[in-house]
């Protein structure tokens, strides 16, 4: 237990009072599977933790109390019947509220979907259930995953468990905060431009964006389809790995799903980084990055070298164009994906004499400002006369980024950068200036444009006492290598490690 944890926000303290919430997902699953604990007791403890702490944190839009207890009972029944309840038996998971859950409110933190009950489960939700994991609640997000702070939720922001005056990052801020606060050992988020990795960094947990196509998007409410990817949160690298293995793998319901089994990442966690070549991306850690963040990235580089990797600077020039390209491509796709919220079939309707008028009234009332801004931007970028200059050009830049990464991966196995240029910022610091908010995603966006995997690992604290995350990036399907390196970084932060002071997070071994 670090000193940060004991002086942490109410959520963490509340969690400790009910007990047992520090255990890792793998420990809990082992206890449940061995019969040492019932799944119901695990879920009850976490529900109590949420009841005690979420009033302040607001990680959840909806707590699935009944459903979670019922699912836990089923796990216990299967165990009693001698059946295998799955690798994550009894482990609570916080689901980002853009993942469809049958009969359970799924809002995307938007008024336009308030009260909607999906008639189907997302593939990842079904796979979680099959693994014995327990969906414990629908976690808050920036409306339709558009944001970097979770301030753009129609139902109010989520607070960072490390400092409730600061944002948890976004857009998967609710999932990250839930995991950091001990409300659930695992969380699922979605990452379109960094929406898993950024809140993971800000909240001091592990967050991972898999290779595009590694995890089915079926049932993930689309923001930008060619960029969206579901990713795991955990308090440990091993937990995140276990969750990835459960949700990844081919899904015939998603045409963009890679036709291959889930990557075997848990098995290689102890393989180390001896002999790996790792490039420190100069464009992503230069001016504009806070000095304390740069220091922690340098410390991570040292730790990797100490473990036998070879770390060198590398230039990936086109990554500087990533932000601009992203803020043309993502809104363009979003403008189309969000057209269906028209008041006809589900969700909010504001009546008007004509259908067109009803569409306008419903959408105007149902969408928040940031969503409207991006719909407008994307509609403009696709509209007649501007397509070539904006959307078309951004698609070409995407090619350039892929080429530059490919060149870097000829010389390096992995790349290293900060996850974000700064630590978590106070509420309201960037809401008035959308562009300044967009800039927080500058380090994470290139992986989404390239479709490559990346992981954010907590690596100490900044001058303000807030967690700092470092990002490891790899080529498509390099998940096993990424997790190996992430495990090395995690180990170097352990009290017995030599990479620096343990801070901001607990070890479970």
């Amino acid at each position, binding site marked *: 237990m670090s000193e940060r944890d004991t002086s942490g926000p109410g959520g963490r303290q509340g969690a400790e009072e009910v007990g047992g919430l520090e255990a890792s997902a793998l420990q809990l699953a082992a206890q449940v599977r061995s019969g040492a604990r019932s799944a119901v007791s695990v879920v009850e403890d976490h529900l109590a933790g949420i009841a005690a702490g979420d009033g302040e944190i607001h990680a959840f839009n909806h707590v699935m109390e009944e459903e979670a207890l019922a699912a836990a009972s089923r796990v216990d029944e299967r165990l009693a019947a001698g059946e295998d309840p799955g690798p994550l038996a009894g482990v609570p998971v916080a689901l980002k509220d853009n993942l469809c859950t049958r009969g359970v409110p799924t809002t995307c933190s938007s008024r336009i979907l308030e009260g909607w009950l999906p008639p189907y489960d997302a593939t990842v939700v079904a796979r979680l259930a099959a693994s014995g994991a327990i969906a414990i609640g629908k976690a808050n997000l920036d409306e339709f995953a558009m944001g970097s702070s979770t301030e753009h939720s129609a139902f109010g922001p989520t607070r960072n468990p490390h400092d409730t005056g600061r944002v948890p990052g976004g857009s998967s801020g609710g999932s990250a905060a839930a995991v950091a606060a001990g409300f659930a050992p695992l969380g699922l988020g979605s990452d379109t431009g960094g929406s898993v990795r950024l809140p993971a960094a800000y909240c001091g947990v592990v967050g991972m964006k898999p290779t595009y196509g590694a995890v089915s998007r079926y049932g993930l409410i689309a923001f930008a389809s060619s960029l969206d990817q579901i990713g795991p949160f955990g308090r440990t690298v091993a937990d995140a790995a276990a969750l990835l293995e459960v949700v990844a793998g081919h899904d015939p319901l998603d045409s*963009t799903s890679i036709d291959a089994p889930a990557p075997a990442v848990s098995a290689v966690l102890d393989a180390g980084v001896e002999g790996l070549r790792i490039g420190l991306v100069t464009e992503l850690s230069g001016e504009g990055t806070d000095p304390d963040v740069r220091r922690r990235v340098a410390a991570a580089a040292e730790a990797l070298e100490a473990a036998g990797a070879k770390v060198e600077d590398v230039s990936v020039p086109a990554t500087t164009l990533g932000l601009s390209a992203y803020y043309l491509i993502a809104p363009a796709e979003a403008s189309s994906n969000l057209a269906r919220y028209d008041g006809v079939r589900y969700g909010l309707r504001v009546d008007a004499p004509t259908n067109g008028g009803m569409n306008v009234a419903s959408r105007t009332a149902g969408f928040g400002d940031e969503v409207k801004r991006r719909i407008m931007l994307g509609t403009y970028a696709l509209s007649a006369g501007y397509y070539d200059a904006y959307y078309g050009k951004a698609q070409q830049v995407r*090619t350039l980024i892929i080429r530059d990464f490919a060149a870097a991966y000829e010389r390096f196995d992995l790349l290293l950068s900060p996850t974000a240029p700064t630590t978590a910022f106070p509420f309201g610091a960037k809401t008035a200036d*959308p562009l300044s908010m967009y800039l927080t995603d500058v380090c994470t966006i290139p992986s989404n444009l390239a479709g490559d995997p990346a992981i954010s690992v907590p690596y100490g604290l900044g001058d303000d006492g807030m967690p700092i995350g470092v990002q490891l990036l790899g080529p498509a399907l390099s998940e096993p290598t990424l997790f190996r390196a992430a495990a090395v970084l995690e180990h170097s932060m352990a009290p017995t490690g030599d990479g620096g002071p343990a801070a901001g997070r607990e070890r479970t071994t």
Partner: protein
Amino acid sequence: MRIRTSERGRAGHLYDAFVAERITREDVAHVADLARLSLSEEELDLFTVQLAAVLDHAEDVESLDTEGVPPTAHPLPLVNVLREDVVRPSLDRAEVLAAAPAVEDDRFRVPPALGEEQ
């Protein structure tokens, strides 16, 4: 890292000239129509400034010489993902219609779509 200052977005009224080059208030109003959104006068002003700031930031992309560079629509080089022509169960109609704001005769009721035919 190439990060521009964000002062323009914050103090939009100072940058009228720059804004006019990028996107006009009329453009924004037209785009709102296409997107079926209604914006107040104040929102029109604000969005014009904010969209202009983002588009100005995208100037590095816009002005780039990309002659001969193919576009990437998709990060995966997949082709021919097909399913077999086999019927799967449809949804329960009652569950589908329960989500609808207005229903009549087992169908979704909407106001008349005047002049909207395609």
